[in-house]
């Protein structure tokens, strides 16, 4: 007798549904895009992919979400709300060619420091956490803002990279919510350590 025959009817249905999902996803048509990086859509795509393809940006954004969830309480929403706003002001400075010192070093340091804060489970008052995150947000925003006018459509580029940044924060928060469980705390802190190592890699040009 097949082992699954012994399962109750509800479980069998669940198995069937679970098996169907990938099959249906395989049917999704792949769009043929002759032109991708032009016009408003091009700007949106390049803006959206920019934080996702730059590992230094990516780990810092995830770290913000992780730390927010780790701190808990008001920090869960305060950090992901503060970061994009301050980042936008940094972006505005970049667009208007206002120079900021050591932007690239600051971006690499953001991975190191935010990663260490998560790994060492540092819990400062929320306002201090927001200030730390805000300083790094300013530097990340400045780097994005400097590239903004070069893109095909700066406005849709801005929308794309703000949304991608926010989604990375949400991904970090989702991972950070694992701290509810004792094993989850270990996973999150290990995640912080990995982020700090990646930041170090960028700081010393290994990556």
């Amino acid at each position, binding site marked *: 007798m097949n082992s699954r025959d012994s399962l109750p009817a*509800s479980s069998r249905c669940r198995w069937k549904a679970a098996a*169907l999902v990938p099959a*249906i*996803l395989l049917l999704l048509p792949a769009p043929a895009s002759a032109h991708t990086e032009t016009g408003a859509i091009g700007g949106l795509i390049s803006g959206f992919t920019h934080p996702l393809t730059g590992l230094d940006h990516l780990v810092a954004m995830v770290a913000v979400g992780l730390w927010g969830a780790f701190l808990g309480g008001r920090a869960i929403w305060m950090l992901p*709300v503060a970061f994009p*706003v301050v980042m*936008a002001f940094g*972006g*505005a400075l970049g667009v208007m060619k206002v120079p900021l010192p050591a932007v690239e070093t600051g971006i690499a340091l953001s991975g190191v420091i935010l990663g260490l804060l998560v790994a060492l489970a540092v819990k400062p008052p929320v306002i201090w956490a927001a200030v730390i995150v805000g300083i790094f947000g300013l530097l990340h925003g400045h780097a994005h803002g400097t590239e903004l*006018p070069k893109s095909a459509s700066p406005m849709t580029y801005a929308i794309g990279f703000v949304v991608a940044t926010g989604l990375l924060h949400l991904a970090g928060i989702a991972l950070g919510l694992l701290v509810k469980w004792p094993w989850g705390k270990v996973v999150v802190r290990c995640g912080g350590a990995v982020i700090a190592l990646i930041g170090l890699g960028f700081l010393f040009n290994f990556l």
Partner: protein
Amino acid sequence: MTRAHQLRRASLLAPLLLMALPPSVQAHGAIKGLEGFASGLVHPLTIPAHVLVILSLGLLAGQQTPQRLRAPMFVLMPALACALLFTLTRVFTGIPQPIPIALALCAAVLVAVAKPVPMPAIQALFALGGIVLGLDSAPESVPLAITLKSLLGTWVIVVFLVFDVAYYSALAARRNWSQVGLRVLASWIIAVSVLMLAFALQKWRA
């Protein structure tokens, strides 16, 4: 498994099946061949600043408690209609982009702060939103009948979208975690608006 469970499963699978449908091949954007009502319907969705205004006004109205969506909507509808009809005079063929962006920024800041806002202030923002979106939606010079249909399309879609966003935000505002979601969304609108304003300023300086 009960019949209700099976139906729920089926309803979850339906969107996946719909996604499997092949998309139509479009050599040019859908907007090129559109005119009249359809053109007006699509117009606000093609301008990022208008989308930001629609989203931020909807979020603002929906977030406030006690829920009173009718009061701001009854201000938006006539303000938008008057402004759209005013474009027929050709006094305005569009307004500077920083104006709608600044309006979206103001509304989004109020959502992110999440403090109670007096209804007259919300109504004032809705009136301003209606006027700004209306004046910035002047159609190309075409026969009057087609222009009127296009204006009607714009009026319908703006009212529908603002109400929709407000209604769903009002539903979301009942749960703590989705209130956080509204504030995060507002912070994204603030970020995009600040960048758009910076870009407009940089263009103006150049």
